[in-house]
């Protein structure tokens, strides 16, 4: 057995997994869009069933300590998490990816200063950055904070990709023929985003979903009555050792959302989103 053998058939497997990921994300969008219709009870409705009832025909996901239907709550929680994650991903893409790509083409001194500053932020766990931004603003801005926390890494990746293109053959020819730097930047951004936008978006979605759910779990995210999956799991912490379903189903929904985003982004096993 070689430690260095490449994976034959990897492109086909990767394409299939990406398709599964996008398909899963599509299904989640449908479920989230229809969450008010699919849920048996409105968000936060207490006393719908008996307290801490195990999964049954009437309550497929069981009920929690306040007698809330966990199937309905999980759907509503997924809706809140996915909505916030989409907003946060957009922030990460614009502030991180797009700004990083533009920064790579700025005058050298400014470009390197920005790269260095973002490198410092990227050396701090994104979770801590998100907590810091929420602490400096308000819990209301948790999606913005998650997006900003994921941005430094996206910036560094975008910067490095475009910086590599700056020394490519097409860039040298363009400069030699007198094409303006702004035109070259526009060209690179167009191609860069056309080819990688879907992957970058899925990657950002996976990253911010993890950050958002974790800050909520730690008490810095969503506030009741609006509950996301992280907050649901945090609330279930007190009972889940004897009522596993209170944490298991929200956690399962969260893992499925992150898994689909990871597969859509074609991330390797264990790769940081």
């Amino acid at each position: 057995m070689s430690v260095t053998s490449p994976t034959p058939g990897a492109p086909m497997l990767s394409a299939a997994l990406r398709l599964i990921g996008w398909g899963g994300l599509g299904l989640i969008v449908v479920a989230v869009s229809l969450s008010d219709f699919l849920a048996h009870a409105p968000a936060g409705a207490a006393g719908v069933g008996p307290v801490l009832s195990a999964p049954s025909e009437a309550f497929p996901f069981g009920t929690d300590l306040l007698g809330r239907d966990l199937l309905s709550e999980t759907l509503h929680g997924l809706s809140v998490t996915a909505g916030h994650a989409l907003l946060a991903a957009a922030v990460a893409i614009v502030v991180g990816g797009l700004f990083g790509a533009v920064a790579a083409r700025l005058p050298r001194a400014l470009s390197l200063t920005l790269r260095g500053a973002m490198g410092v932020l990227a050396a701090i766990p994104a979770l801590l950055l998100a907590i810091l931004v929420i602490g400096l603003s308000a819990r209301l801005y948790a999606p913005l904070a998650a997006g900003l926390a994921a941005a430094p890494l996206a910036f560094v990746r975008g910067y490095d990709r475009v910086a590599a293109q700056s020394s490519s053959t097409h860039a040298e020819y363009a400069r030699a023929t007198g094409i303006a730097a702004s035109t070259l930047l526009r060209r690179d951004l167009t191609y860069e985003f056309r080819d990688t936008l879907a992957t970058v978006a899925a990657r950002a979605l996976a990253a911010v979903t993890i950050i958002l759910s974790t800050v909520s779990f730690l008490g810095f995210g969503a506030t009741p009555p609006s509950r996301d999956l992280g907050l649901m799991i945090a609330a279930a912490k007190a009972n889940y050792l004897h009522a596993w379903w209170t944490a298991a189903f929200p956690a399962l929904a969260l893992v499925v959302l992150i898994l689909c985003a990871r597969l859509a982004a074609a991330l390797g096993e264990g790769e940081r989103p």
Partner: protein
Amino acid sequence: MLKFAALQAGRLALGLLGATLLAAVISAIAAPRAPGLASFLGAAGLRLWAFVQFDFGKSAISGLMAADELGRRLPETMALVLAGGGLALMVGAPLGILFGASPVRRTAAPLMQIVTAAPVFCAGLALAYGAAHLLHWTVSINAPVAASAPIFSGETQFLELSALPVLTVGLAGAAAVQLALRRGAVENAGEAYRTGLKRMGLSALEIEWVYAVPKVIAGLLARAGDIMLALLSAAVVAEWVFHRAGAADLFVKSVALEDWNMTALILFIFAGLTFATDCAGRIGAYALANEGEE
């Protein structure tokens, strides 16, 4: 080699300077000042000067010097990160080597994708559930019983209480370790030296052991910064989930209670740890990859 080490030392110095500037800006939020940007920048400048003199201010929560307070909490986090890092190497290295072999990887890939999609707090809660129900361990999920239990202690209950946070951090680190090893392996798969060595009569095992393995380990070392970042992130969550009174737990409480001096100092230490690990890893990787060439 010396030139490369000097370059990395320069990068480390710049990184630490940036982290100090960031910490000074955060710390300035707590400084008494007049409203306005100019006043804030002045306060940040004063905090930066104080930082250079190793004066990190006082904790707004305890009233103690921030450095002293952190000094009491940091060993807990470092023990967690070190023990988790050791576990990450023990679990991640065999996994990385195993997954380098394509049939095994293809079989295990879906399971690994699911496992690595779980956020650290979900993994921690799942481990606690398993330990409580299958092993009948005492778990510190809902009570701060572990706050006074040192990680490296001989007593059974303390070991049980320490095992779960270490496992949580270790498994998060293992994912990063196996990925770094696998990437190192893939980068070396197409290297031209393999054909040359085969023509020289070396067996596949000799090529792997003498030439490929050091380069794969170099790949792992080159990503040491990423692994440290994964361990630190996991430590934050593990300390919160399992009620460990470490620096990461202190950070969460400091932000919640707006103790900006403490927040700034912890961020500086964490960024410094990542930069230092990254620097040491890159130098080690360079030395290993270029062994015998200088």
